[in-house]
């Protein structure tokens, strides 16, 4: 049995060249200091493999047609054996991939591994990053629920702002003038054929370049990159102190990848796939479009920007972001690699991560939006159960003031908190504000009667601080 197996393997090996060609590649020498810092790239690849495997399975039941896509998703989630786990793996795998790509990018940037001779490694990586973001975005529409559909609407609307070519771009993306049947089939093709093709080709090239130029060493203050001497010096150091990638260096990659895989599958098992929103319908106005978490920061920025800057930002960030990242190694490909010598790089990474976290949190809380679901104020907050103050409090809710303003902790956050407004403004000021509106606040003059206005102001004048408000006497 064993000799037969051995003979068969020899036959295959002599034809395939595994021992001759492939083994030397995976056994190539890498710097011995390539330790835990280096595991994020391979873990990204593992997450991508999860995406391909789960995606292929999901595609066997998914119907990319506007009429049946939602039903097929329900079937996958609720009935198909392992369907819910697979959907979960695909969803958490996407999040994992985005996170790992970002960490990998930050690590390579911090260690300046993009410098000579690895400029193209970095540039292919940047293309891969944008392809991955494209996968995440197109995948959101394939979920074909209200949220996905409206998010795509917003995104193509942004694309259509580009001068001259904008409308053409959005019509091309949508496959027509509106989000409809042809949009889903198109996005299916981008998500399942076009972008994965780009990613697979890109990963192939990225890995080829990795083997061609070797894994970069940990930065050393005494070894700034000089393109004229770098290669011989690198090779000499490798000969002296290098270790073989397989298995001496690779086991860490495998351990971390196993961890990533376990987290993805674990989340899918424990939390299940993200819940499906209502069926998509451009006629349904009761939806609150929200992109997936990795785009929340962008969503937050869009609502914080002054309108005049908006178009520049919408178009500028993706295009300039891509160009800046892509061209980075062309602008600086020699000199120091050590973070201690590159304070700007460290600063940029810290600022970018802090900005991301803050804006994401902000985006999640969405304080700029009217909050349509605020409950009415409790009598204990109002300080009255009848009379003009009570009526005023009711009106503050029904006239939707509370959608934007909070009072004693309940209400929206789009506008200023009104808990102490009675101390800050006079009765006349309040009347003028409510009638005429102001920056970002609608004028209510035409939509409330003077009796209603008086009651609202009566109520607001009782808002004087944390002490329990005293009902004002009836006028």
């Amino acid at each position: 049995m064993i000799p037969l197996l051995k003979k068969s393997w020899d036959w295959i090996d002599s034809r395939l060249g595994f021992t001759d060609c492939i083994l030397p590649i995976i056994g190539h020498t890498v710097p011995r200091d390539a330790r835990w810092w280096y595991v994020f790239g391979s873990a990204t690849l593992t997450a991508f493999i999860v995406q391909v495997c789960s995606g292929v399975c999901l595609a066997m039941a998914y119907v990319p047609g506007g009429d049946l896509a939602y039903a097929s998703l329900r079937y996958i989630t609720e009935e198909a054996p392992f369907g819910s786990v697979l959907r979960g793996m695909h969803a958490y795998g996407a999040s994992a991939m985005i996170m790992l790509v970002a960490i990998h990018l930050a690590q390579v940037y911090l260690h300046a591994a993009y410098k000579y001779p690895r400029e193209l490694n970095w540039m292919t990586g940047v293309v891969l990053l944008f392809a991955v973001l494209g996968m995440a975005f197109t995948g959101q529409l394939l979920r074909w629920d209200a949220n996905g559909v409206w998010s795509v609407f917003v995104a193509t609307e942004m694309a259509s702002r580009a001068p001259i070519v904008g409308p053409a771009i959005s019509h091309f993306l949508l496959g027509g003038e509106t989000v409809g049947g042809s949009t889903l089939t198109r996005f299916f093709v981008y998500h399942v054929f076009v972008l994965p093709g780009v990613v697979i080709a890109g990963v192939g090239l990225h890995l080829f370049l990795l083997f061609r130029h070797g894994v970069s060493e940990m930065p050393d203050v005494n070894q700034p990159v000089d393109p004229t001497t770098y290669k011989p010096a690198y090779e000499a150091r490798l000969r002296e102190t290098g270790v073989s990638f397989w298995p001496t260096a690779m086991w860490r990659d495998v351990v971390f990848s196993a961890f990533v895989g376990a987290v993805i599958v674990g989340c899918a098992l424990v939390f299940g796939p993200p819940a499906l929103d209502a069926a998509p319908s451009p006629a349904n106005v009761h939806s609150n479009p929200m992109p997936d978490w990795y785009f929340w920061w962008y969503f937050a920025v869009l609502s914080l920007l002054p309108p005049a800057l908006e178009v520049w930002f919408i178009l500028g960030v993706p295009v300039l972001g891509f160009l800046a990242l892509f061209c980075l190694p062309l602008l600086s490909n020699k000199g120091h690699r050590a973070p201690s010598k590159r304070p700007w790089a460290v600063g940029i990474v810290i600022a970018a991560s802090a900005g991301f976290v803050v804006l994401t949190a902000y985006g999640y809380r969405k304080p700029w939006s009217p909050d349509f679901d605020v409950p009415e104020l409790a009598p204990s907050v109002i300080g009255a159960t009848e009379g003009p103050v009570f009526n005023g409090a009711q009106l503050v809710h029904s006239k939707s003031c509370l959608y934007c303003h909070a009072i004693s902790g309940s209400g929206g956050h789009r506008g200023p908190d009104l808990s102490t407004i009675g101390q800050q403004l006079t009765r006349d000021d309040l009347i003028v504000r409510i009638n005429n509106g102001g920056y970002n606040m609608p004028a209510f003059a035409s939509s409330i009667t003077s009796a209603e206005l008086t009651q609202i102001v009566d109520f607001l004048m009782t808002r004087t601080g944390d002490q329990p408000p005293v009902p004002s006497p009836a006028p």
Partner: protein
Amino acid sequence: MNDPNAPSKCCCEQEDRRSFQAKLSIGLSAAIGAMIATPGLGFVLAPLFRRAPHRWRAVGAVDKFQQGGTVLVEFEDPSPRLWAGVTAKTAAWLRREDDQRFTAFAINCRHLGCPVRWVEKASLFMCPCHGGVYYSDGTVAGGPPPEPLYRYRTRVRDGQVEIHTAAVPLTTTITLEDV
């Protein structure tokens, strides 16, 4: 017979042949590429050249609508694909001004297209995305939207209110005629 130039002549000939073969291969490859790509490009780019269709769609009998009231009406997209399913539907906010006059607003916020909601008691349209607010006549009351809500043309025919529908408008590519 023993021409010393013979070998080089032979090579020159070969050189000519080789360059011809190279050109032939490159030319034919380009032709193959063009044959494959042309129909595909035409197919994929077709939406860019389609004219946005408009169609009058009835949304209900005149008497169904109360004077001064603003309600959501659903109707079919002017040119839905056969497989569009629920996405063949779109909607408008319709207000009855008087006996014969109706105003129809697109539900899409002019900021980035999110669906605006009519808040009856406050007489405002509000957008859930970035806080855009519009007055009952569609003009901007606050937030980021740069322009008023779009209006569709409306008319009354045979006791039915009709809306001159367009595809759900992208604000920059709107093709309504009377905005």
